[in-house]
């Protein structure tokens, strides 16, 4: 065995599922054991999630190897390969780092939650505007569409909509989009630091993170039964 061989297997969550990013010049067997190691303690929390293999430029796995890894992940961890055959055959190469953000939040896994493909709510027509900061103890509810807050949602405040919630400010309280069960609803905030985020019937709590991260516009929505937060690049 070559002791200079290098294996890096990274797992990241994106809007369209997981990506397994392989960067290695090692043998197939070594990559396989690295994948197993990476997936070992995930339990069944990701069952049914789509996973896509991506490779760094310096490594070219054969389509057979890629297919072998897909079937391995499917059989042992319940991860589904991307649905188009084409994608299986020609694994995309990672040429530049993606600017999408990996999954944050605690993956909630409601049994039998339908997986919507349409990411945004159908209640697009109606919106309620809140033109001030929602402070502790203040609650806004709109069950006929979307809510747009021009201000912050502070800790202790709550905003609930049957459709999407758009916060042109800091989200630090609780936001509940799709409150009538629309799990295609989304929460958008200029600075996403909620106490709790609820979409449809899924409740998440974000991981605690370093203070004073540079704020950026982000969107949270459900994908494959998990709440995923990513850079917001428009509806």
């Amino acid at each position, binding site marked *: 065995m070559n002791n200079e061989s290098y294996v890096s297997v990274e797992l990241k969550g994106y809007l369209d599922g997981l990506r397994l990013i392989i960067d290695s010049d090692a043998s197939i067997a070594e990559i396989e054991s690295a994948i197993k190691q990476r997936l070992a303690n995930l339990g069944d929390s990701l069952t049914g999630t789509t996973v896509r293999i991506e490779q760094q430029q310096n490594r070219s796995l054969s389509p057979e190897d890629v297919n072998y890894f897909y079937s391995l992940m499917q059989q042992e961890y319940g991860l589904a390969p991307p649905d188009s055959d084409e994608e299986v055959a020609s694994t995309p190469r990672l040429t530049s780092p993606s600017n999408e953000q990996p999954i944050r939040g605690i993956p909630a896994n409601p049994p039998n939650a339908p997986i919507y493909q349409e990411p945004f709510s159908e209640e697009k027509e109606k919106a309620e505007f809140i033109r001030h900061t929602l*402070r*502790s*103890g203040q609650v806004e509810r709109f069950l006929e569409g979307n809510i747009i807050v021009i201000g912050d949602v*502070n*800790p*202790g405040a709550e905003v609930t909509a049957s459709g999407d919630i758009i916060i042109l400010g800091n989200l630090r309280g609780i936001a509940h989009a799709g409150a009538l069960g629309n799990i295609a609803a989304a929460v958008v905030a200029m600075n996403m630091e909620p106490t709790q985020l609820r979409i449809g019937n899924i409740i998440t709590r974000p991981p605690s993170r370093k203070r004073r991260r540079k704020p950026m516009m982000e969107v949270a929505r459900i994908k494959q039964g998990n709440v995923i937060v990513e850079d917001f690049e428009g509806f």
Partner: protein
Amino acid sequence: MGRVIVITSGKGGVGKSTCVANIGTALALSNKKVTVVDADIGLRNLDVIMGLESRVVYTSMDVIDGSSTLERALVKDRRVENLKLLAASQRNNKNDVEPEQMRDMCLKLKEENDYVLVDSPAGIEQGFRNAASAAEEALVVTTPEVSAVRDADRIIGLLQSEEIHKIDLIINRINPKLVAKGDMLDSEDVLDILSIDLIGVVPEDPNIVGSTNRGQPLIFDSKTGAAGAYWRISERIEGKEVPIPEFKVDGAFTRFWGKLIGRRDGEIN
């Protein structure tokens, strides 16, 4: 016509009454006519902090039920011209007063004073509404603790729904050592949540306790530490441009950065 300013907090014990006593005294020492009103009915202590307890004969309750005129109920502070106190009854409770009654008294006092400072009780119930009833401005006091900031936020929301829109923030009991260690929220953390104008930062000061016990507001005896901060707040209330120092561990202070003071529209540079 003067200004009616309510001093309030949400959370109890954060230093409202101490602020009222010191800022009221500072304004009076700057030759303003000031009346401080204790709206903490049932738990009066502004008179104690100001050392006027033994001279209280009538309270706002007596004015309301007609046993005293407003003029007669005011206790004059002998140490400084133009400073008076309207004490709260200890026998009654907050629900014995209606917001309109409090409002009427404060509006009368407003005619004869430059400043009417109303010391609000903690909480969000009727006592708070009474205290805020005549005010057009508010000073919200908080300590740099998450729970106090949360309650301050709540109070700010309530003040805004009472149509009080000039709301300034006092951060009390900043301890530079704890901030440096990262154990205490700093002013920027607090402002980030509350996003209102900061009018002063008062450091934790061991001399406060003694001054409270003696009934002699610290401002009479000192121009540094907390007393210095109260002085500067009184000057800012008067519209003067006084920078807000950043309290450093070594006791020296530098000025806050423009980012933070920029919130008071151009007041401090």
